[in-house]
């Protein structure tokens, strides 16, 4: 911007009418093009965000909200249910994201050496289930987790002489059951990203490693894994963000129960907003959640980001 103003003969950086005219003569078109997406962004992102922020300091009512300062934030900090939800969300995130990244990486490593046709087949095979609606998937999982011997998992358990488990009904196993769903869920997008990244690693590095006496494991550990780090970081950040917002499974499978075992923050927000009509509290919870996600993402980028060049 400074350069351009110099080139158009304006030496000062002061904000004057002359500057403005010149500026719009030079760049008016750019703004015209940017305007449409900007309007959409403001309408559908900025505006709701600002309104939600305002609601978080109010007792919301459609006919006139009442300003209550930090009461919503105070009450959620003092709510044992909020902390239970926080704990559940953290456990869910810690148990799903890293394991799923490893599963994805493992599958990508299995697919990568195959020829083009087989690669395409497996890419599609792993990607397509992700297109199925979450609700449909949940119905199938409800059957898999059926507490009686009629359920798939328990049928397998019974086959080996083990007792049936009340997967979703027992507070000790409910959250784990939801976590298990993600392990066997869709890894397609991650696989595609990993495969693309693997294709971008120069072959000569592996040949050099071959000559450097590196075995399969050493190559994976010292070449593949470090060079996939940007992809892993991306999957990690996106995975953590989405798992912090996990809602659908808890809503469809367990309604946050039993005994709050699957009440996640996002579920709690839904519950407070749409069941209790406490939109102010829900907004406050949303901002706490958003704040946590931002902090974690920044930390991750700070500690893990690298600009690998090859």
């Amino acid at each position, binding site marked *: 911007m400074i350069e351009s103003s110099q080139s158009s003969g304006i030496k000062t*950086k002061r904000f004057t009418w002359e500057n403005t005219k010149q500026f719009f003569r030079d760049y008016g078109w750019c703004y015209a093009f940017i305007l449409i997406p900007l309007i959409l962004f403001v309408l559908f992102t900025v*505006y709701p965000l600002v309104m939600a922020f305002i609601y978080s300091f109010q007792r919301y009512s459609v*006919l006139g909200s009442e300003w209550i300062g930090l009461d919503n934030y105070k009450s959620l900090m003092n709510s044992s249910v909020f902390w239970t939800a926080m704990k559940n969300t953290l456990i869910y995130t810690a148990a799903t994201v890293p394991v799923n990244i490893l599963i994805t990486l493992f599958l990508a490593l299995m697919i990568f050496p195959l020829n083009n046709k087989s690669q395409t087949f497996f890419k599609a095979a792993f990607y397509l289930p992700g297109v199925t609606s979450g609700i449909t998937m949940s119905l199938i999982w409800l059957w898999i987790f059926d507490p009686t011997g009629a359920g798939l998992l328990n049928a397998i358990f019974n086959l080996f002489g083990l007792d049936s488990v009340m997967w979703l009904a*027992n507070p000790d196993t409910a959250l784990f059951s939801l976590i298990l769903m993600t392990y066997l869920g869709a890894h397609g997008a991650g696989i595609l990203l990993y495969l693309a990244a693997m294709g971008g690693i120069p072959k000569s590095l592996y040949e050099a490693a071959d000559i450097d006496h590196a075995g399969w494991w050493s190559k994976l550990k010292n070449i593949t894994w470090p060079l996939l780090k940007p992809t892993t970081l991306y999957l990690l950040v996106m995975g953590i963000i989405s798992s912090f917002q996990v809602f659908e499974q808890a809503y469809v499978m367990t309604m946050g129960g039993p*005994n709050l075992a699957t009440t996640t923050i996002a579920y709690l927000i839904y519950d407070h907003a749409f069941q209790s009509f406490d939109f102010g509290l829900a907004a406050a919870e949303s901002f706490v959640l958003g704040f946590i996600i931002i902090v974690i993402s920044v930390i991750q980028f700070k500690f893990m980001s690298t600009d690998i060049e090859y």
Partner: protein
Amino acid sequence: MKKFNLFVFLLTFILILTACNGNEGDQTGAGTDSEGNADEDVVTVWTYPHYEGNEETGQQSYEEDLKDLIAEFEAENPGVKVKHEILSWAEGGKKFTAALNSGNPPDVFFSLFDEKYVNTGLAVPLTDYVTEEDLADLNDFGEQMYTYEDQLWGFPHYISVHTWGGNRAMLEEAGVDVEKIQQEGWTWDEFYEIAKKGTKTVEGKEVYGFVTQGQNEETYTQLMMQNGVRNMVSEDGEFMFKGDKALETLSFLERLRNDGIMPKETGGIDPAKADVMFNNGQAMIYGRTGPYKIRENENRNADIDAGKVDGEKIDFVLLPLPHNDGEKENAFGGAGGLMLFKQKDDKGEAHTENAAKLLLKLTSTESGKLGATLFIPPSRQSGQEMYKEELKLDTPNGQFVQRYITTLTPGAKLPEAIVQNAGKLKTESVIPNYQSFIIGNATAEETVKAWEDYAKTLGFK
């Protein structure tokens, strides 16, 4: 750089301002638009697909019947147009909640009564619009269900009642006189003995005397009503699921589970699963169900005859919930009907009056068909009269329903100050702790203690 930032900032700021204004402008704009012709008043109604059409019997779907009623209404009220929308059972509630809380509810909406709706300030009492004749025709319980702070907030289509259901063949095999129970009720001990007889293993398959859903506290709450406790929280803010009464009820459930009369997986059984188990002959008695199951069961039997469905036909009987010795039967039920709303941008008295007229038209005597089709008693005496054929009042099941709805009592109407906390108490303690209890992770004593403690922290007596 500075200049650039300043521009972006200004632009964003201006856009936010215009966006806000534009938004409001849009809303009013849309309002006038949909009204179209200036002399025409458009009234909206949102309801659900209460029943489907059936090609074989020639039965119309609810939407078709609704359209007929609307056509009649529009003919009777020139200048009023009705826009209707059939919501999905799964998503409709959410859609309405969002519409209500953004200030744009439909004028007429099908709903059970909910204090929260009234507390938004957008619900409109029907009191001024309803006639003496309407009120005289309306079932008392139905009227009570929609009455809050001395105002009538809706007009019910029907009176729904929760019952348990039984497999007549299995019950009679256990030597039970079904009609006697239907007419006189039964105690917890009598129920226990009968259910125990029904619990057995047939051809390697477990058959339970009793199956119920254990995903939430419903079965417990309804059994508490048969033990003299009508509400979780009383109108003066007392927590009622406490002490000996609560312990007694939980212990009864615990005994059923521990003795294998009820599956030990009850915690994992949802209503649909309980229904499937009953249909598969895995349960002699199951809960909860309701009169609607009679119609469902007839259809299922017909489908089996037609070879469309695999399975054994069932002779289905409605059963009352058993009551504790010395306590009275107290059926749990509700009334389903239409509530009246206005919008944040009030469209005026004339509009509300039109909406109220539509509401009463849609809940008129003819609309008793809704209940009758579902085998649920219509809320108007005149409706019950009109549809007595469909309601099979001469059958034991029909007579049982007639008797059982007389034991209905309305629940506590909580004052605004404690509604939110009562909701919290239920979702944050009563249901979660019950879930722990029903799968055997907590004893009856621990559960009651946990409830009592949590109720105290929320300020209940």
